[in-house]
């Protein structure tokens, strides 16, 4: 491994290449844009989290006594909208993906740097509309906007929020387009498809969904707005429309959107597992193809959200079996990651804790997903807390664990600094425990029959709800700790080396933080990804990563 910066004179890193607010707001450097996104999504994460705190507080007692029902309905609606559209969807692609994809493929930037910057502005413009509606009292339709409630009955800010989501959708389309073109056109010489890191494969699959799925969401939101304003009669039966049509359109996007959220996290996990097992990933091609399989099959299962709507039983049957098929590539990934650990050299550093946590939680999320896809079980647990628990295992247990694992892995690269070992491990374990305490009781509540979106509930379910709320407070603390030490690290953390973990990958061959153009000379790739063997020139580090 030869350091690429060997020209003698030190080139300033991307953080120091220019100064001042303007140099950030008008930057076209993918790394700086990644940081801009990181600031935005973090803000939305804590905003959405605040609403979750209020929801869990309300549910400590069976009576709806903390807030008014209308306030409660707005809380879970805004929690869902913010977390899904403004956090989970952009979280990994727009931050880690943005930062790493060009570097991982040996490019100086994304294919369209200005579109990349534009996407951040578009994202924030959408965010502003949503904030506007929150400040005015919010929306109460649920993040799913089911008709005819959203078109005819709700008297809250449906249009403003819808517009916010509509606009933000374009940032997702722009990002997806940018990634696809970049990955196709800008790979360094020698970097064939099957030498790409799996992180890149995962983002490639994600980008396909972003590009093909998001326009459907845009059309759907537009139709809701038209129906609401002019009663054009598409969704409202009072005007000859079909409310179930909305659900088809909505889930046609929103089911694949789940994979927009979780595929990038899977990409992160492949990087973490290989680095901290210091071993090539087991079944590289299977993991790569399974990402694409998930993206394609993911478009064919939307009807599993509609088993009780009275949709044709034949349709339900097909959607059920396809939903099970889409679980196969996910299972393949889990097995391959596990097999990668076999005879590895495994370190328990913080990012690895997140990766192992991810596998555990994602497995539970996936298995309960298979239960939900089973028609006979779904008629009972549909729209109950069982579903709530299931998708939080996928999205919080999956996506957020992946995101935090990724942040902790690439933090030294992004900021050039290290963070405290003890606190970061402490936080990872706190999050894992808090998460399970919050969401596991909800599976039981769901099978008992507690419907979701309930402001008040029968007394006998209180203990489980209190457990869940207690878990949520632990989880909340777990999320705050990294905020503190990462902020601290940006200023006071010890300087990180180019490759503190002894990882393989182009991003680890350049300095930390990278220079504005990433590579001073174009890299040439002559080996496969995860070449952790001596024959392939891998030299393990001789000292531990320096934490605090």
């Amino acid at each position, binding site marked *: 491994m030869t350091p690429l910066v060997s020209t003698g004179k030190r080139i300033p890193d991307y953080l120091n290449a220019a100064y001042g607010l303007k140099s950030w707001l008008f930057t076209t450097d993918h790394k700086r844009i990644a940081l801009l996104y990181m600031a935005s999504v973090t803000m939305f994460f804590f905003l959405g989290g605040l609403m979750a705190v209020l929801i869990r507080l309300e549910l400590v007692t069976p009576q709806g006594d903390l807030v008014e029902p209308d306030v409660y309905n707005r809380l879970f609606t805004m929690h869902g909208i913010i977390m899904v559209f403004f956090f989970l969807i952009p979280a990994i692609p727009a931050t880690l993906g943005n930062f790493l994809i060009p570097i991982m493929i040996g490019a100086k930037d994304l294919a369209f740097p200005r579109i990349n910057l534009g996407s951040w502005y578009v994202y924030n413009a959408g965010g502003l509309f949503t904030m506007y509606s929150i400040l005015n009292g919010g929306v109460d339709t649920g993040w799913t906007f089911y008709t005819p409630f959203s078109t005819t009955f709700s008297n809250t800010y449906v249009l403003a929020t819808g517009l916010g989501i509509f606009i933000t959708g374009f940032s997702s389309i722009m990002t997806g387009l940018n990634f696809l073109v970049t990955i196709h056109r800008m790979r360094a010489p020698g970097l064939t498809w099957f030498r790409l890191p799996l992180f890149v494969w995962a983002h490639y699959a994600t980008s396909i969904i972003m590009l093909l799925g998001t326009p459907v969401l845009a059309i759907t939101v537009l139709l809701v707005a038209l129906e609401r304003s002019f009663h054009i009669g598409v969704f409202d039966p009072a005007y000859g429309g079909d409310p179930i049509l909305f659900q088809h359109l909505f889930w046609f996007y929103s089911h694949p959107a789940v994979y927009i959220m979780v595929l990038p996290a899977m990409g992160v996990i492949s990087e973490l597992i290989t680095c901290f097992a210091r071993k090539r990933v087991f079944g590289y091609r299977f993991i790569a193809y399974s990402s694409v399989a998930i993206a394609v099959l993911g478009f064919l299962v939307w009807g599993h959200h509609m088993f009780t709507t009275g949709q044709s039983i034949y349709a339900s049957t097909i959607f059920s079996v396809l939903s099970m098929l889409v679980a196969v590539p996910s299972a393949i990934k889990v097995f391959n990651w596990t097999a990668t650990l076999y005879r*590895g050299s495994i370190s328990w550093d913080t990012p690895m804790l997140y990766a192992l946590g991810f596998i555990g939680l994602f497995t539970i999320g996936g298995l309960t997903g298979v239960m939900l896809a089973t028609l006979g079980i779904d008629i009972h647990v549909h729209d109950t807390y069982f579903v709530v628990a299931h998708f939080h295992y996928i999205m919080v247990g999956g996506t957020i664990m992946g995101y935090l694992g990724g942040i902790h892995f690439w933090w030294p690269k992004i900021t050039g600094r290290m963070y405290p070992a003890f606190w970061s491990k402490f936080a990872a374990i706190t999050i894992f425990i808090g998460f399970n305490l919050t969401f596991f009781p909800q599976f039981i509540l769901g099978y008992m029959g507690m419907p979701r979106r309930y402001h008040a509930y029968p007394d006998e379910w209180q203990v489980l709800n209190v457990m869940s709320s207690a878990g949520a407070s632990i989880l909340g603390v777990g999320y705050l700790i990294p905020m503190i030490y990462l902020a601290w690290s940006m200023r006071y953390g010890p300087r990180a080396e180019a490759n503190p973990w002894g990882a393989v990958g182009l991003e680890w061959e350049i300095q930390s933080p990278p220079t504005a153009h990433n590579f001073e000379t174009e890299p040439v790739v002559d080996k496969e990804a995860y070449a952790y063997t001596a024959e392939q020139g891998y030299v*393990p580090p001789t000292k531990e990563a320096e934490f605090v």
Partner: protein
Amino acid sequence: MNFDIPLFPESASSLASQVDNIYFFALGVSVVFSVLIAGTIFFFASRYKRRRVDEMGTPEQTNMMLELTWSVIPLLIMLFMFAWGTKVYLESYRVPRDADQYYVVGKRWMWKFQHPEGNREINTFHVPKGRPIELIITSEDVIHSLFIPAFRMKRDAVPGRYNTAWFEATKTGTYDIFCAEYCGTEHSLMVGKVIVMEPYEYDDWLQGNKPEQSLASSGAELFEAKACHTCHRLDSNARAPILANIAGKPRLLQNGKTVDATDTYLRESIMNPKAKIVAGYQPIMPTFQGQLTEEQLLELISYIKNLGADQAQTPADPAAEG
């Protein structure tokens, strides 16, 4: 605060134990896989823990057999669950022939139940044990979902269409009814109780709360009050089709297509007659949109469905198929 932790809902319908059985199977499979994966991860992560900073992993060749094994085994287990789950699902849709028809209307924020004998209830639903009961469910406003956990039964109440579901209660008692589809402010108060009684008790209850007339006879009155009978006669289909014996049968439409005369079809024929014109007739029927409540519609439909049971002879119907 009640400190018992209930872990499992009561089972009080013929479907409940079937749903529970698949659930337990799926749960078993999930526990086995979770423990297997978590155990393996933990075992590997400890057994192969890095001892020296510069220790390296031992590379592994991709093993085709292994990959196939762990793809195919879960697939087979899932296909088995799929088949089993689908069987139960289809059963929950296949209404037994001898089931009595009850109507359910969801409305923000209450459940209205109508017994075939004409009894009406709000948020309380008396039913006999051991008799199959068909529910015909609709909504007056937004989408709701009728959920009775003890029966493992849930069906959406969708405005503008009728969804059917059925159950057979197996245990007397009082069980929760919830609205499972979010419907606005008092969604969580749109709850009720289903009271399962011994059949003789139920019959007493029906008698004790005897309404003036049955659902179908209220429908018959409406049929005259709304002047339906001026076109739809019992003896002549000159102006409009005779409605006897059409319910559930295939109907031939003007555009050559055939549709089954389901409840939803009958409803649409009244509310939006132009949508599907019966073959051989002029589109002269006016719409009754806005002139009938959901309950009145149900009465009319119940009347139409009861027509014909006693009419032995009906003149040739141009739209009857086959």
